[in-house]
């Protein structure tokens, strides 16, 4: 049973990462900095519970707010450029964050051991869950509480004016600007929201793995972050969740017997999926179809 709880934890954390990229993608911007934001949330969250003995919930929220601030600050210079330049700018920022933690030492003696981040060796002993006697099932439930909360919030946002504004910017910047939408503030807000979700996910990630190091947060993770919403489709938050379940659950776990060939298949499948379904698995047509099948009135 613990194996399935572990799966649920992994899928939950990756869903948060994917959703953080989803918000930014709605405005038509591709941010490769999500792994960097995830790292900031992970290190800050871990430092708050380990070094300052905070409870995990306030630590997570503070880490998320701090990450959101960083994301918004990065947003200003980065959003001067757009499209493909932004991909490169955010990629570079994500790498800079990773390299920062690679060179960052801050250790404090606690009892007879040294705790805290230690450069290339990483940040060990983030033991909030085991120290407080949480079982794997409880941790999984805790993670999914946040995942559902974030998904509901995003779903609600999508149906409100804010969602319409984000999508308007994503569809056509010029048209959005001409109806009086302030592009910069919308994009910075989306970056900030994405940063908040990534920071939240990162803080949870740090606590459930108990050991983080800079190499966890490289380009590969950033690629995964944007791969989930793009593969899943941007018409719905569920697309991201389905893509995460498909990649982490089916490709990584169920195909484990394929060994190393799995990664090869993974690359080939992405290429194939994008050729066959350039709008993602869960595009507008599938959403309409599902709504009709489930008996909702087709309103999209």
């Amino acid at each position, binding site marked *: 049973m613990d194996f399935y709880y572990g799966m649920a934890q992994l899928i939950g954390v990756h869903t948060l990462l994917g959703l953080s990229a989803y918000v930014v993608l709605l405005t038509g911007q*591709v941010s490769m900095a999500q792994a960097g934001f995830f790292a900031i949330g992970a290190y800050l969250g871990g430092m708050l519970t380990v070094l300052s003995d905070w409870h995990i919930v306030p630590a997570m929220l503070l880490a998320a707010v701090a990450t959101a601030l960083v994301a918004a600050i990065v947003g200003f210079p980065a959003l001067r450029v*757009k499209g493909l330049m932004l991909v*490169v700018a955010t990629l570079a920022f994500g790498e800079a964050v990773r*390299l920062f933690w*690679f*060179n960052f030492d801050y250790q404090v003696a606690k009892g007879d051991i040294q705790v805290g981040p230690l450069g290339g060796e990483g940040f060990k002993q983030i033991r909030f869950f085991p120290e407080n006697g949480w079982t794997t099932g409880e941790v999984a439930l805790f993670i999914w509480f946040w995942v559902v909360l974030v998904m509901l919030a995003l779903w609600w946002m999508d149906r409100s004016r804010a969602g319409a504004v984000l999508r308007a910017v994503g569809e056509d910047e010029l048209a959005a600007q001409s109806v009086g939408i302030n592009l910069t503030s919308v994009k910075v807000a989306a970056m900030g929201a994405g940063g908040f979700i990534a920071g939240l996910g990162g803080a949870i990630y740090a606590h459930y793995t108990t050991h983080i190091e800079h190499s966890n947060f490289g380009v590969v993770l950033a*690629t995964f972050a944007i791969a989930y919403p793009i593969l899943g489709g941007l018409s719905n938050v569920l697309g991201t969740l389905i893509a995460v379940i498909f990649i982490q659950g089916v490709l990584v776990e169920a195909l484990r017997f394929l060994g190393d060939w799995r*990664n090869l298949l993974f690359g080939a499948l992405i290429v194939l999926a*994008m*050729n066959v379904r350039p709008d993602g698995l869960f595009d507008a047509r599938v959403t309409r179809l599902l709504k009709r099948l489930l008996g909702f009135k087709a309103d999209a």
Partner: protein
Amino acid sequence: MEDFWWNVLDTAQSILDGLMFGSIYALIGIGFTLIFGVMHKINLAYAAASIGGAYASLVVYVHLDAPALLVFLSAALASGLIGFLVYLCCFRFIPTERPLATLMSSVGMLIFIDEVVVHVTAGFPEPYPAIFDDVMLVIGPFWIRGDLLLIFGLSIVAMLVLLYVLYRTQLGIATRAVAQQPVAAQLCGISRETTNGLTFVISGMLGGLAGAMIGASVGVLSPLLALPLTVKGLIVTVIGGLGSIPGAIVAGLLVGAFENVFQFFRGVTERDMYVMLLLFFFLVVRPQGIFGRVSTRD
């Protein structure tokens, strides 16, 4: 005072070494920028294809025991072929107005090529041949590695050939026409698909040469090179200005020299952080890049 002069000499020496290594970055940057110029798309599989081509040329080296120059040439050819395959799999059949889809498919290709290399070589680094690696030129107080000088020379030759192709041949005119006005070019009877495909082959050949140069200068090839090379190549492309070939050359040399100086003074772990800062400096001060024009479209 004595120390000061030694520092100046060391700095100059590391700039010199960096400039030579930077010519490889310039080649990679040109590849990204060429494809961007023609298709307005980024091919993220490009650096992986370059390393893949260099790996493919090992077949010639190991089995036929070919001379190093021939190995470099076959790396370029193999990488050109891979470039064409990348075009077919990731760009040809995906609608052009879906930038996210082609971005993602080229990422998938990057993973795929990387994994093929890992599988074929069992993940071990492979030795790569070099020319003049035992020659050391001494000019005044400076030392110049013979193999690096050769790499620099070969890169310059490759760039000159590319400029000749682009500005003096029919193919080059067609490529530039498609880059400037795709619709008008098609109306003049230029096939957009053929031109795009050929651009991938040409940039792939440059990349294969760059991959071979990296193998020659480091002495080994490793699949771990693909990701850092992608990041560096993209940075060079942006600093130089998207779509600008002279920009990519200047930016490649600049980044090479810059990172080598910081590697000398701050060590290898901090080096890339300063390169990122250089990029951010350009994004704030000159977002269109060194030679880029201010444009309003993607």
